[in-house]
């Protein structure tokens, strides 16, 4: 035991020791030291926050999982919506006008009309469906063969399908009107309505997901606020001691801010994992489905940019939650209360 060893060596008549010596070099090195100390405290806070999270694995896993689920839900739905958009993108090109001719128009007149329309600058191609073809197709598709046989004559009108170059709704409607003016034409049907409806539905779904994302992001922030509030509560004494020996608010705050950030980041990473697993899981049924429709379409994943952005965004949410908790609850912990 070094009881009687090394008494403090007095520096007689010297001013109190901690005053920094004057001089530009000393000042610069003081700044350097201060920056270095600040950097080291950031590092220590970050590591310490991680260590504390690891020390309570169950509680940490619960919080991280809650955050992950709250984030995976909107992220997953967004990916599905993007897939729906991509899958239906090409369908605009199939928009066409079904021009039903009067029933007494014969097939040579039908061919002539189709030829004339096909030559128009705003039409890409036409397809002629004669009354006989229409009947054969209908018979095959509907299974009403016997009923049709019983009819005295073919009830179906001759049909010309017109595929326009420009498939914007305005152009389609103009063409519809112009074709409808012909004497031989009975009805021009625009087969674009359902595409419009689908797109409107996707748009609506997008907005609902947006609102859901906002609500769940708020939930993530609140989860972190609560977690950090509890952490502050359980470390009251430590906070008091740090404040008593001259710790600034920033110094006290830092470990908690890192804790919030780590929670968010971990939650975001697990969310990415959950979404990827879900995509793998539904991937093969989708492939079967698209094969049925003779489509080359295959599922779009999250993309690695989103897989990076989501955890960072989540980390930011965590930081925000920690900040809220700290600015609300840290002032409640003051040395004079002990």
């Amino acid at each position, binding site marked *: 035991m*070094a009881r009687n060893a090394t008494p*403090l060596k007095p520096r007689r008549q010297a001013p109190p020791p901690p005053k920094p010596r004057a001089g530009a070099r000393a000042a610069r090195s003081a700044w350097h030291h201060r920056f270095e100390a600040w950097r080291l405290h950031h590092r220590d806070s970050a590591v310490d926050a991680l260590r504390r999270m690891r020390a309570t694995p169950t509680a940490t896993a619960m919080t991280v999982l809650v955050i992950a689920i709250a984030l995976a839900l909107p992220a997953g739905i967004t990916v599905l919506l993007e897939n729906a958009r991509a899958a239906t993108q090409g369908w605009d090109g199939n928009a066409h006008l079904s021009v039903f001719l009067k029933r007494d128009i014969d097939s040579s007149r039908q061919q002539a009309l189709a030829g004339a329309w096909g030559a128009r600058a705003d039409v890409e191609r036409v397809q002629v469906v004669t009354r006989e073809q229409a009947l054969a197709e209908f018979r095959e598709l509907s299974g009403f063969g016997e009923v049709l046989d019983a009819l005295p004559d073919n009830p179906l009108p001759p049909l010309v399908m017109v595929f326009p170059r420009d498939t914007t709704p305005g152009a389609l409607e103009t063409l519809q009107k112009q074709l409808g003016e012909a004497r031989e034409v009975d009805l021009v049907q625009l087969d674009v309505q359902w595409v419009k409806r689908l797109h409107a539905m996707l748009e609506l779904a997008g907005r609902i997901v947006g609102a859901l994302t906002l609500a769940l992001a708020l939930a993530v922030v609140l989860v972190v606020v609560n977690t950090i509030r509890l952490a502050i509560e359980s470390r009251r004494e430590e906070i008091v001691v740090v404040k008593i020996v001259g710790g600034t608010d920033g110094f006290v705050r830092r470990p908690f801010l890192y804790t919030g950030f780590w929670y968010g980041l971990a939650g975001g990473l697990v969310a990415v994992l959950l979404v990827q697993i879900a995509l793998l899981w539904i991937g093969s049924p989708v492939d079967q489905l698209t094969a049925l429709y003779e489509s080359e379409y295959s599922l779009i994943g999250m993309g690695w940019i989103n897989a990076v952005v989501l955890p960072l965004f989540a980390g930011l949410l965590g930081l925000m939650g920690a900040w809220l908790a700290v600015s609300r609850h840290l002032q409640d912990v003051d040395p*004079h209360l002990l």
Partner: protein
Amino acid sequence: MIQLDRVSKRYPIPGGGGKDALRQVSLHLPAGELTFLTGHSGAGKSTLLKLIMMIERPTAGEIIVDGLPLNRIGSGGIPLLRRKIGMVHQNHQLLFDRSVYDNVALPLIIAGFPRADIGKRVRAALDKVGLLDKEKLNPVMLSGGEQQRIGIARAVVNKPPLLLADEPTGNLDPALSAEIMDLFQDFARVGVAVLIATHDLSLIARYQHRLLSLREGRLIADRGEDIHGA
């Protein structure tokens, strides 16, 4: 170094009224002097120290520390004030989830000392209180007197210009008390203002230092210096 001008402190009591812990206390503690502060339990000794540390705020009067009136210090300035003052707390105020070393290093880390210096300073402080061989232990494993000495090491580790000690020898045997007193006197000798609150009359009697006595929050005696000298 420290000046109090008609300082009063009234603690609010839940349910109305208040407790006057200090009444119209005026005093001056110059640099380089060791002063004892005594008085019965509840006389207001700890309260006086807490006011100087800005742990509590006075109800009336003015306190000036190192030329700085405390009522002009905002909450942002409090940490800087506290770094100038080493305080030994009556209830130690240690961190029980860290080693002795980490406890003593805390003020240095907070003040942003270069890491290379910290080890040296912490060991020097632990050496002075005779705990050099306990640096890796947790304070829980140490006796009351040893814990008290951790608090003392932490108070002196950054060599502050001001030292406040609240019953620093309360748990120490006479030999250790004498050693700690030597330490405090060494600090006073190099220009540190030292204020020691204590019940220990035999300790006070052994040294010829200035003595302030409180009774019911009033300063009733000042041995060694003019009570109104400021």
